[in-house]
C-alpha cells in the first residue's frame, strides 16, 4: 500500500538524532509489547508480514505521531482482534471474557523462548527456475497494490542491475494477506543514485533493494 511507512526519499523529517548510551528500552511497557509480539507470532497467531501490514494500516497521522513500540502495540491489538484471538469487549474490560482460540503452535511458555532467539527460515524450494541472472538489467514494475508489498515507491519504474540471487523466499505480498507463501526468487537489485533522484542526486550513490521476482520486468 502507498502508506506513510514507505518513507524512502521523503523530505522534511529533519536531522537524525542519535541518543548517547541509549537504553534497550526507554520504558518498561515497550519491553512488554516487544515480548508479546514475539510470543504471539511464535505461537502462530500471525506471520511477520501480516504484523507489518497491520502497522502500515495505522492511520498516517497516528503512525507519524506514535513512538515505535506504540505502533507495535496498536498493530498487535487490532490484528489480534481482527483474527479473533480477543474481542473489543475484552480490550475495553481489560480481562478475558471467553476462552482463548487454539494457537497453531500452542501456548507460548518458557520452553518456547530459546527457539525464537534465532530468526525463522524464509527460504523455500524453488517452484520454477529463476527468470533473471546476475548482471541482468531489470525494471522495477510500476505497481501500486492497496495491500502489503515490499517494493518501495522510490524505485518503481526505474532500471537497476541484478547483483545477488538469494534463492526462493516466502512472498510477503501474499503471506501478509494470508493468501499463502507463494515462494518467489529474491534478488538484490542495485540502482544508480542519479537514476532515482535525478541530476541533482549524489553521483557516488548506489542504492539496492531486495526485490522479489514478481516486482521486476526485464529491461
Amino acid at each position, binding site marked *: 500500500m502507498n502508506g506513510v*511507512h*514507505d*518513507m*524512502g526519499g*521523503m*523530505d522534511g*523529517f529533519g536531522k*537524525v*538524532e*542519535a541518543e548517547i548510551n*541509549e537504553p*534497550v528500552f*526507554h*520504558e*518498561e511497557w515497550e*519491553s*512488554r*509489547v*516487544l*515480548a*508479546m509480539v514475539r*510470543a504471539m507470532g511464535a505461537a502462530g497467531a500471525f506471520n511477520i508480514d501480516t504484523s*507489518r501490514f497491520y*502497522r502500515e494500516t495505522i492511520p498516517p497521522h497516528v503512525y507519524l505521531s506514535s513512538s*515505535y513500540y*506504540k505502533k507495535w502495540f496498536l498493530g*498487535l491489538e487490532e490484528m*489480534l482482534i481482527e483474527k479473533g*484471538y*480477543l474481542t473489543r469487549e475484552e*480490550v*475495553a474490560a*481489560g480481562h*478475558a471474557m471467553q*476462552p*482463548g482460540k487454539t494457537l497453531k503452535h500452542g501456548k*507460548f*511458555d*518458557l520452553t518456547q*523462548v530459546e527457539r*525464537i*532467539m534465532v*530468526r*525463522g527460515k*524464509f527460504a523455500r524450494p524453488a517452484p520454477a527456475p529463476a527468470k533473471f541472472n546476475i548482471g541482468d538489467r531489470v525494471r522495477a514494475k510500476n505497481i501500486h497494490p492497496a495491500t502489503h508489498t515490499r517494493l*518501495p515507491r522510490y524505485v518503481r519504474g526505474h532500471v537497476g542491475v541484478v547483483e545477488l540471487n*538469494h534463492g526462493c523466499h516466502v512472498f510477503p505480498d501474499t503471506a501478509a494477506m494470508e493468501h499463502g507463501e507463494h515462494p518467489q526468487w*529474491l534478488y*538484490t537489485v*542495485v540502482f544508480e543514485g542519479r537514476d*532515482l533522484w535525478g541530476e541533482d542526486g*549524489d553521483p*557516488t*550513490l*548506489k*542504492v*539496492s*533493494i*531486495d526485490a*522479489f521476482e514478481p516486482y521486476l520486468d526485464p529491461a
Partner: protein
Amino acid sequence: MSEHHHDHDHDHSELSETELRVRALETILTEKGYVEPAALDAIIQAYETKIGPHNGARVVAKAWTDPAFKKALLEDGSKAIGTLGHVSRVGDHLVVVENTPERHNMVVCTLCSCYPWEMLGLPPVWYKAAPYRSRAVKDPRGVLADFDVSLPKDMEIRVWDSTAETRFLVLPMRPAGTEGWSEEQLAELVTRDSMIGTGFPRTPGAPS
C-alpha cells in the same frame, strides 16, 4: 477515548494510558492461555543482557584477523558465523558487506525497521525513525554528517535497503595502528554504528 476511561480520568494513577492498555492486553493474553508472563520476561531479559553489538563485534574482529574466515563470511554470512558457535547464533540470510578504500556501505530499512538483531541487538530509536528512513537512500552523506562522519568526496557510497528477510551487516575497515592486536582487543574498537555504516570503528587510544 471510551466512556470507561473517561469515568476513571479523575483518579489519575502514575500510569499513562498506553501503559494501562499494554497491561490490559497482557492480562487478556495471559488469562486466555496464550502466553506465560515468565516467558515474556525471559524474552526481554535476553534482549537486555545477551544480544547486542558485542555479538557483531566479535565477528568483525575475527574477520580482521582470519583471512579464511573473512572470505567465508563475505560469501555466506550465516554459514560462516554458524561455524563459530560460541560467538552468536544467527539465522539465515545474513549478508556481510565489506567497506573498502573505494566503497562505504550503509544499511537502512525504509519500509519498517529490519535490522540484524542477532548481531547488533534491538535497533536504536533513530534507526527506526522517519529522519533516517527517509533520507538514507537519497542523501546518505547528509545523514552521515548528522553523525559527524564524512567520506572522501569521490568514494562510492552504497546504501542497502533491507526490503526482504535478508539482513545486512557492514564489515568496517580495520583501524590503522592495530597490528598484532588480539581478536579481543580489536572487538573493543568495533562500534554498533560502524556495523550499520553510520560510523567508523574507534581508533587505538581514543576514549571508548
